[in-house]
């Protein structure tokens, strides 16, 4: 785990200047001329120990931990566009570890622990902000399922509180407590939950990984796999062929398409999820709030925009855009829950393609093809998983065995029936 010595400076061609208030002030005096690229824009070499497909949060985090924890830095991250152009830069940035199942909870809690130390680890302020995640409940049955979830969290040492309606009102007096169709009965609160600045997470990992010698290669789309004797030994890309000892796939919404290049059919469906941001307003909503009687959740960014979303559009699609009925559905939820924001304007809406798995939980596993490893099935909850996903995928790639907290994320669990279905909706990906 030892930090690398000065040798990388020579290798990289420049010394990375540490980010700190001291250097910032010093640079301010000289017009910020000395800041170098946050990460090297590398050109592909002909071979690497490990090639990771996908320069989203997960791919970059994997590279970082491969280099940092496992000492494997002859690594390339291949990104078809610019890093973070996929879901990493489209999500609503919520981080939490309020999971129910024993196969999930320790993984997400490990992720939360990594978030809590991320800035120091990466020397990059990713604005991890633990302002709380509150899931509202509107019926006794819903309260009981939240109680079950909260108890599970507490059993693993995760913070959780069950609030009654009065406590919720004290926290968020502007919610509709009078004329609501589905009155608020209370909420499950995880105070350590919150948000992080999604782009900064991507850039922070890229910078840290690049600093340890990882090649981050943008505008490099994987178009095929190179096979020798049944083993995958490299990839074809728009920037030439690249050979690799091991190849890790972390392409989120493109999972089915990239897997197809390897002839794999996966238990994944692709669905669109939309997100919305409002014009910036002065601080209004302290943490994250989710509506329990409709499809709506919301938080407020540090810039002041209300960031919110709701349900999937519901049909299979690779188009990174959604449609009006879902926009309306989400805003109906918003108005049902907090009618005070009615005059706040929606500034932008966009869509991302989700890799929805059959049980709503992810896969971090080997594939049936030697040399090819899979990190997928993140549904709409993979942002919060970024650190742990990278950590566990790096572990798998480096050691060829699953990390303890990711043991349940097997690819064969759909065949064996060891499902991780948090909400019990079954093998209908658009309902997770």
């Amino acid at each position, binding site marked *: 785990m030892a930090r690398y010595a000065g040798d990388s400076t020579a290798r990289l061609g420049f010394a990375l200047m540490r*980010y700190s208030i001291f250097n910032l002030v010093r640079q301010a005096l000289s*017009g910020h001329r000395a800041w170098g690229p946050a990460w090297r824009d590398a050109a592909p070499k002909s071979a690497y120990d490990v090639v990771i497909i996908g320069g989203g949060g997960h791919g970059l985090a994997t590279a970082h931990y491969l280099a940092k924890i496992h000492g494997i830095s002859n690594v390339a991250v291949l990104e078809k566009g610019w890093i973070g152009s996929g879901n990493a830069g489209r999500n609503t940035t919520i981080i939490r570890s309020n999971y129910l199942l024993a196969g999930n909870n320790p993984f997400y809690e490990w992720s939360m622990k990594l978030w809590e130390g991320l800035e120091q680890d990466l020397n990059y302020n990713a604005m991890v902000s633990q302002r709380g995640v509150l899931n509202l409940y509107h019926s006794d049955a819903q309260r009981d399922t939240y109680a079950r979830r909260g108890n599970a969290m507490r059993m693993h040492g995760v913070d959780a509180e069950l609030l009654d309606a009065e406590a919720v009102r004290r926290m968020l007096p502007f919610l509709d407590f009078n004329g609501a169709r589905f009155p608020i009965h209370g909420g499950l609160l995880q105070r350590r939950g919150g948000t992080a600045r999604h782009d900064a997470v991507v850039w922070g990992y890229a910078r840290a990984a690049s600093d340890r010698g990882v090649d981050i290669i943008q505008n490099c789309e994987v178009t095929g796999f190179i096979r020798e004797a049944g083993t995958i030994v490299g990839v074809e890309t728009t920037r030439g062929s690249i050979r690799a000892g091991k190849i890790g796939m972390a392409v989120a919404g493109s999972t089915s398409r990239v897997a197809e290049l390897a002839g794999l059919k996966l238990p994944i469906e692709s669905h669109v999820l939309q997100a919305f941001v409002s014009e910036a307003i002065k601080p209004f909503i302290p943490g994250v709030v989710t509506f329990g009687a409709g499809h709506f959740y919301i938080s407020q960014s*540090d810039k002041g925009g209300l960031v919110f979303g709701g349900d999937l559009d519901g049909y299979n699609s690779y188009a990174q855009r959604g449609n009006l009925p879902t926009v309306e559905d989400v805003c109906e939820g918003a108005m049902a829950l907090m009618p005070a924001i009615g*005059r706040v304007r929606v500034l932008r809406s966009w869509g991302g393609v989700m890799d929805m798995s059959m049980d709503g939980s992810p896969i971090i596993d080997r594939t049936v093809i030697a040399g090819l490893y899979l990190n997928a099935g993140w549904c709409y909850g993979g942002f919060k998983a970024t650190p742990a996903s990278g950590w566990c995928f790096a572990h798998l790639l480096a050691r060829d065995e699953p990390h303890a907290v990711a043991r349940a994320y097997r690819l064969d669990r759909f065949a064996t029936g060891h499902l991780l*279905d948090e909400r019990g909706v079954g093998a209908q990906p658009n309902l997770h």
Partner: protein
Amino acid sequence: MNASGPQESAQPNRLAGAGLIDRIRPLSFQFDGKRYTGFDGDTLASALLAAGVRLVGRSFKYHRPRGILTAGSEEPNALVELRSGSRREANTRATVVELFEGLEARSQNRWPSLALDVGAVNSLFAPIFVAGFYYKTFMWPAVLWEKLYEPVIRRAAGLGRASTEADPDTYEKAYAFCDVLIIGAGPAGLAAALSTARSGARVILCDEDFLLGGRLNGERYEIDGVSGPAWTRQVEAELRASPETRILRRTTVFGVYDGGMSGTHTFAALQRVSDHLAIPPAHQPRQRLWRIIAQRTVLAAGALERPIVFGGNDRPGVMMASAVRTYVNRFGVIPGRHAALFTTSDDGWKTAFDLAAAGVRLAAIIDARSVVAPVLTEEAKRLDTRVFCGAQVVDAHGSRALERITVREDAGRLSQLQIDTLAVSGGWNPNVALCTHLGGRPRWSDAIAAFVPGDVPRGMAVVGAAAGSFSLKDALREGAAAGAAAAEATGFKSVKHREPRVTDELTAVVPLWCVSESKTKAFVDFQHDVTREDVALAAREGFSSVELLKRYTTLGMATDQGKTSSLNGHAIMAALTERAIPELGTTTSRPPYTPVALAAFAGVHRGKHFKPTRLTSGHAWAEGRGATFMESGEWLRAQWFAAPGETDWLTIITREVRAVRSGVGVCDVSTLGKIDIQGEDAAAFLDRVYINLFSTLPIGKVRYGLMLREDGLVLDDGTSARLAPQQYLMSTTTANAAKVMRHLEHARQVLWPELDVQIVSVTEQWAQYAIAGPNARRLLERLLGDAIDVSNAAFPYLACAEFSWRGVTARLFRISFSGELAYELAVPARYGDAAIRAIMSAGEDFGITPYGIEALGAMRIEKGHVTGNELNGTTTAADLGLGRMMSKKKDFIGRVLARRAGLADANRAALVGIKPTDKSARLYAGAHFLTLGAEVSLQNDQGYVTSVAFSPMLGHWIGLGLLVRGQERLGERIRAHSPIRGGDVDVEVVASVFFDPEGARLQS
């Protein structure tokens, strides 16, 4: 028009005579508490300018003083808080707010006042507050982020304040269908509308402005010998007379979405019905959301003039050249007394000439181009205006507003000009946003140095300035041609008509993105305070793709979505990284085109109207009995019926349960799903969807059934009755009614289309009442008389019948959820109210007690019946103790996957009953089971409590739960661990049926 002095002291900058305002209708308004007057037809911006107000807001980061930059919806600077109290609207662009009597607006993001804003000290830290500075600091110590740094950042960020009260206004939604949708009512759009309307096609013409005419209102064009506005009025009159044409003013088409007719698209538009009024008139919404489905579209959305990036280009008084013309020509307002023009295009010169015509002589025309068309320079000479060609404005100075500029002349000499207004024209960007919402990419045009439409949505034609054709003549011609083509394409015959006469114009432009010698801060994105240096820093740090540039510097993420900033930023980045602009590409514009109030998307679906409220036909009766209702999905169901004086829910439920178990009670069970299944293959169909057999069910009998999802887990349970050889009536749980219906439809239509089976949901068509208790039969005998024989012999447990009762078809089922002798009586819903009243009066002598779903719930737990808490989507039939129901004689949905190792594992949790070892202890659902003495950890988790109730019959709390190997552990003491509420309770594992385990009562 000739020179005119200030008309009245309150409006020092108002010109006499000019403009499209109604001078006999003065309107008074307030800005930051000060009173002003304007006229009907003004915007807040034009009225403020008329009153001489230049400082209107403060910028996001540095709190720089900002004024009015534009005259349109692209305004990045002049954002105000409009209205007050529950109608307060943050970030409202003063340039699009129509003035109304009593309007109140306030500046934003300043303290204590707009003129004296403490936040402006941020400017001193500007060298530190560069793009992305926050990513490089605030990391130590980690705890201070949430406690100190972030709160400070959050308070400083954001612009206006949202109201904390519910929005009191209403919003509507409307659908419209048309042959041709025309977006924009400038000259191109009007020409298109005319030629389409004349063909007889159904036309919708939308414009975001409150006047039709677009640029015609801001310029001094003449068409066919009349002024632009006069020509517009003629066209408008003709269009209004055309029966198939609908004109929507104040309506912004803000998004293009998938899905329309014959491969075309859906357009979303927002109509501001009442925003120009103090409050919406009675019965009128504030805004209306239109969903427009059009066969063809003509996009005539015009172009947006772009600023030039130079030092101090954000000072109040620096304005877009076209905006200056709009204020002069349309509103009769001169933004300042001492003005200059800085342009790189021929078009900009019009501003100089219009100002001169209004009596303002320009201090100078500064054109960055060395060579300019002689007609322009000659005209300037005639007007006695100094012209600097090949010159640039290097810096603009002033404290709270523009006072002076530094000009670098052609020869390099620097000179100073004292001015209060600088009109800037950097060329025009076609408004291509709506071409790109479906993923189309715009194309770069060297000729106009801007992006023009590339691949556009199917069925859309782009005309006029939106297509990069900047002359009036081209706009009119292209509009008319596109309108005619759209009419033809939708099956109408277009009528040829004469092209209007207009004069030629010069439209040449040589782009100047950025003045390199500027010494002071040069802004690219005004609202977000993104400077040229920020773009350079992004380039240096590797954020050089347009999307990374946007995300790193926030360029283009302000409320104008980069309308005035993105291209300038990209051009600067292109130059810094030695790439051509088209190589860089452009960021994707997203709907909505201009920001749309959240409430408009929600329409009427808020408060009680968020979702429909479903009431059973017995609702009014229950209300009359003092029922307390609770939501059960969309239904309202009686939770309990408090007797006079009863306040404690446990007392009420205990009374209700005891009454049922000792006498008779009645419960409205109409909400349970009912699905009528008919056809030759109805029996085969049910055999395939249920795990147990239904084809063997005799007519006149009911059977309990369980169905699985395809993945082998339980979907729902309920009873199905065989009413006739080819007719079954299935009942589902209330919660799963729709889910089951969907599942059956899928099976019928997709899996087995060959089966002859029809299904229909009849939940709403029947009212159904459970009559339960030892006296149930006697009650029914009295109620039904000889309509049906309900004796045990004639109508045993699980019998069913359809019969005529008092002239009405009724159905009776002998089924029991409570475990008592019980029947369910169903009548058509419209007799539901009469039926429950009849039941009550027939039961009077038996002391009949209405009971709610809490009592029902307590009784079902006493009986160990499962409901939603146990059928939670993660349980198998075997988990619920129903594994033996799985028929081995047939195939059924879920059979194969239910055999997966993980679902057949003997270590799974199984349904058990629990009771506290200390009988006074209360149980809580959601508690987890732990073996006594085991350490608290998820690894030691043994299952959880699904349902609990206080059992009136046993006198203590009881519960159901799913416990690992539960059926083998009866009698074991375990711990129900509930740190989140209630704490831990020791419980004994028992069989899941607590009361009358032999089922003697329901057979009696």
